């Protein structure tokens, strides 16, 4: 196996690993949205595990297409997600807080 082929193989495996990591964190995010008890804790996981899920996914894209062209745009996309994602989560949580929804605590009956 030549050196070029070896780096190519390494790149493919790196892309596979990053994609799987992205899938894992997106999966965790989904499970969290289904399992967690109230709007606040769901806002946590909907935005956050997703950030990392999208992050690893975009990293895989960047490595696949190469950093020179479109890969750079995926870095910008990541930046965009990192700015907008917490803002959206904050907007949801803030709206819930202003509506007077008391956050769920341990021992609370409602689910």
């Amino acid at each position, binding site marked *: 196996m030549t050196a070029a082929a070896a780096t190519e193989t390494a790149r493919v495996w790196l892309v596979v690993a990053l994609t799987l990591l992205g899938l894992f964190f997106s999966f965790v995010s989904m499970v969290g949205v289904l399992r967690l008890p109230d709007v606040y804790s769901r806002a*946590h*996981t909907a935005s956050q595990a997703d950030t990392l899920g999208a992050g690893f996914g975009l990293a895989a894209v960047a490595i696949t297409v190469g950093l020179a062209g479109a890969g750079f745009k995926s870095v910008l996309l990541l930046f965009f997600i990192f*700015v907008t994602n917490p*803002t959206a989560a*904050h907007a949801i949580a803030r709206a819930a*807080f202003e509506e007077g929804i008391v956050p769920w605590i341990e021992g609370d009956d409602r689910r």
Partner: protein
Amino acid sequence: MWWVADADPASGGDDPDGDAPDAAAAAADSDATGASGSAGAVIVPVEPSSTLRSTVAHVAEAAAADGASAIHLVEIASWRNGDPESEERAAAAERVLERAAAWTTADLDDSEAPAAPDVEVVTAVLGADDYLFGADDYVRVLAEYAEANDADRVVLDPEYTPVGNTTLLQPLEFALSNTPLSVETAPVDRPTRRERFRTEATTGRFVALFGLSLAFYLLLGNPTYWFDAVTGVATAAIVSITLSRVSLDSNPAIPRTPMRILRGLIYVPVLLFEILKANLVVARVILDPRMPIEPTMNRMRVIVGSGLPLMTLANSITLTPGTLTVRARDSDLYVHSLVPWAREGLFDGSLERWTRFIYYGRRSARLPTPRERDDVAILQGPDATEELPIAAAAGGVVDASDAADGIDAADASDGSISSDDASDEVTDR
């Protein structure tokens, strides 16, 4: 200096900054001024605005006519003592105050009203010990000062925007109407009527926004292709003409702005690592069949400036899994935490220190943690130290044990309901 000694003997030798506690003590034992002047003192918040001169003229004229005891020209600090640049900004404020005081004195000398010579002119810088966030903070500072100095009126310069880089969501006039002070906007001609939420357009801001949007456009397109260059310049021009007064709230400056960007770049990998670490912890909690979460609402008072620094900190907190910024009420952040681990990490204040590092440099980042400062509170659960400031409105969630109180819930104060919740929580255990 400007502080005329007969008004309050205690502060005769005091510095011109008029520290509130000293002034309060002084005002308590000096009622001498009440006899001479029929009206109390007037407070004029001062900023270098286009209508400051005519406002001062109006105030001097009115004060002389009414026989006001004093004119207090006050500048509300847009800095916090000890921050970088605070000394320069304090000096600039002193210069503005000095000029306004000189104008006032000259106007009083020119005035023909018999009471004019009795009006004293006092200047003060207020609120430099703390970051002030919104209209409420300014009003609190003004009201304390008014109380301490026996003032009953506030005259606002129509162009007055407290703290050049802060956008006030709530007009100062409205907030002042909740205090015993009477408020009046000086009836002077304003050169142009500007819309709210807009800061001043400056060349620096325009150039910075133009460069930024052009660079971004060319990054997305092809920088060497002439068509992209032409459309890029056109787009950047449109963006910077329409938005340079909205998007940037302070002038870019060398070396401050590049240093902030550099320090921000250092922060990115740190934040990414924090996100990864916290994500693993939260993922484990979510996937655990027992799901051992202990969510609580918490409050943390942070020491960062309003605007961009606070946004950076709140966004970083939300990005870090396990913590979610729910409200920012002035410098109080209400943060929901999913697990105690995340809460403890929050109270250790490393994100706060990093934010201070980005915006104010390394020296300013050394400060005690919020926990050491006693600026934290847990608002729910068995460890609660403070009540949850939430109005459990009708239709809001009140759990089964409180159902009987449901009718009262609408008009009961928010504190009592949340304390009920807290006590139920304790007795359940």
